[in-house]
């Protein structure tokens, strides 16, 4: 098995990574006996053959991925091409105390902020893969917004990976102080290399201070060689708000844990997800809406479409703690199974420990409606286009939640590409 390479033995990052490495060594690999891993197997992944990613196999990032997301320029952009990093941040934002950089630079330039963020993060202890991401993830993103700072222009980071038999570990830390707001888009993508096997392990820890608001958009379009394991936690303080959007199109296999923790009174979280699988993809999203304070609101909508022999799992839980009265929780998962051999599992759940709450959920798995197809065909639209239109329509309510034309366009193209092979 690999061992991590720790840099800068004095820094907080080093300390954090060593703790994570200890956690990694003591934690067992998950297996199908655990509820969360019942439907997703990691057999077939050759961990012992993996090597650390290095700079030898970086490849050029496709121009499409670095195009600005809006007509306006980015407020900042960080591009990780394997181990190579380029960082840009609007000078005005830097002067206001906004930090948007990679972890290595953060360690040198903003050690106190990095220390504050890392000390508050315990996500690495969640399980083997979370610990793996933290122990090996010597790089990643730090986004810090000081008190009373409103960032209008979107901040964008992209992790682009390549190579064969590589481990790509990555971490994202976001910290908004009081009365702050920002829009942050993080993308994971890789060069297609289907005869190979890579491991992408990521950890994301987001903290939103009182009265602050974060728009958080995540897009995953990894290649079919990638086995993708992610642990994400968003913690929302008093009267703060998160609008969290996930789009998943790629990877051979994904196991994602996304936790929304409404820790402050009056906090709100909206989670919108969509996935579209084909071939033999297997995408498993595990969501948790934790109402840990009174008067909190959560609203989750996940939509998925499946082609080929692909498989999806969505398992969602709304948890309402004893003290979290007057909460309002909602979750819905809608799946469109477009092929006989594809399969979607949808498992909603509620765990409510107090009265005076409103929690509802819904889950559906359906096929393409033949009457809808006939109706569109009767207007002269050829069948394959009719079907494409229905699938686009299925995703439209989620697309409307994505605040950038550029991102919407990219995903519409991806839907179109996948539908072309249908």
């Amino acid at each position, binding site marked *: 098995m690999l061992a991590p390479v720790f840099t800068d033995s004095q820094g907080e990052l080093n300390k954090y990574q060593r703790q994570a490495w200890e956690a990694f060594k003591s934690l067992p690999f998950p297996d199908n006996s655990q509820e969360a891993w019942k439907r997703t197997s990691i057999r077939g992944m050759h961990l012992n053959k993996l090597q650390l990613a290095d700079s030898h196999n970086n490849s050029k990032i496709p121009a499409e991925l670095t195009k600005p997301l809006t007509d306006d320029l980015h407020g900042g952009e960080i591009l990780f091409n394997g181990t190579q990093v380029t960082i840009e941040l609007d000078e005005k934002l830097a002067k206001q105390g906004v930090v948007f950089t990679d972890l290595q630079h953060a360690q040198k330039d903003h050690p106190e902020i990095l220390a504050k963020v890392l000390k508050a993060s315990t996500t690495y202890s969640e399980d083997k893969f979370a610990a793996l991401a933290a122990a090996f993830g010597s790089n990643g993103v730090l986004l810090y917004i000081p008190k009373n700072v409103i960032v209008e222009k979107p901040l964008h980071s992209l992790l682009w990976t390549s190579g064969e038999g590589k481990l790509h570990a990555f971490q994202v830390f976001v910290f908004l102080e009081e009365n702050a707001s920002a829009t942050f888009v993080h993308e994971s993508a890789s060069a297609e290399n289907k005869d190979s096997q890579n491991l992408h392990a990521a950890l994301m820890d987001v903290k939103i201070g009182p009265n602050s608001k974060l728009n958080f958009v995540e897009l995953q379009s990894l290649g079919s060689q990638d086995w993708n394991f992610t642990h994400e936690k968003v913690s929302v303080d008093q009267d703060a708000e998160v609008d969290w959007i996930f789009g998943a199109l790629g990877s051979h296999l994904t196991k994602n844990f996304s936790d929304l923790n409404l820790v402050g009174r009056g906090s709100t979280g909206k989670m919108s997800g969509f996935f579209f699988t084909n071939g033999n993809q297997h995408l498993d999203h595990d969501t948790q809406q934790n109402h840990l304070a009174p008067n909190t609101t959560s609203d989750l909508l996940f939509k998925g479409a499946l082609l080929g022999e692909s498989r999806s799992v969505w398992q969602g839980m709304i948890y309402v703690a004893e003290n979290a009265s007057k909460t309002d929780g909602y979750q819905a998962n809608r799946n469109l199974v477009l092929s006989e051999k594809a399969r979607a599992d949808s498992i909603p759940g509620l765990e409510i420990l107090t009265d005076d709450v409103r929690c509802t959920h819904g889950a559906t798995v359906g096929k393409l*409606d*033949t*009457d*809808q197809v*006939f*109706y*569109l*065909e*009767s*207007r*002269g*639209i*050829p*069948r394959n*286009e*009719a079907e494409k*239109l*229905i699938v*686009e*329509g*299925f*995703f*439209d*309510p989620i697309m409307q939640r994505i605040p950038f034309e550029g991102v919407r366009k990219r995903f519409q193209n991806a839907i179109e590409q996948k539908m072309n092979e249908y």
Partner: protein
Amino acid sequence: MSELNIRDLKVSIEGKQILNGVNLNVKQGEVHAIMGPNGTGKSTLAYTLMGHPSYLVNSGEVTFKGQNLLDLAVDERSRLGLFLAFQYPVSIPGVTVANFLRTAVNARRKALNPEDKGIAIPEFRKLLMEKMAVLKMDSSFAGRYLNEGFSGGEKKRAEVLQMAVLQPEIAILDETDSGLDIDALRIVSEGVNLLRSQNIGVLLITHYQRMLNYIKPDVVHIMMGGTIVESGGAELALHLEEHGYDWVREKYENGVPSAS
């Protein structure tokens, strides 16, 4: 001139024969009304002509503009100039009226010229707004998801809007009058009449005389037991309104003329 020609059409659904030999000839510019009680095969005829996969043609033939209609796919029938206004229009969540109709217009252009890049958005918008104004539809209608949450009247109006945009040569209106109040009926009928003045042929399926007050038929057919048993002028519909179908039932048991 376009002509829809139906010869001895026999059709079944789920193993049960519903149409027992329909003969009908509709020319461009003519309005034919088909009347008859429930369950006599009027909607089956409409769906079969459009090509719904649940209906199986056992025998007979249908030609449209000289082509064998039954050999064509649903979308090809539409592009050839046939239109069906649905009795129960299907809702398509997430697809706006404008996006849907632009896709339909572009499918037509592309079939004529594979290199076509599609109608320019401003040009399409102008076309759509013109047609909507005729049908007294608010411009916000274009941005709504197709038939999603539409009232009965809005759905029927949307059907006629689609017809106005796609400009078919022969249109089948399957109980387009059902669920409409008097005002909506008048507006929808005016829309149809406008197209009629542009030389469309109409096959109008209805239970009632009332739509025929607005859209004057050239020929009225009575369908019973899966065949057309009587044909006549506009006065036949008035006669039915007054006397009901009992006299037809007495004359034709299960669609077979008792006299022959």
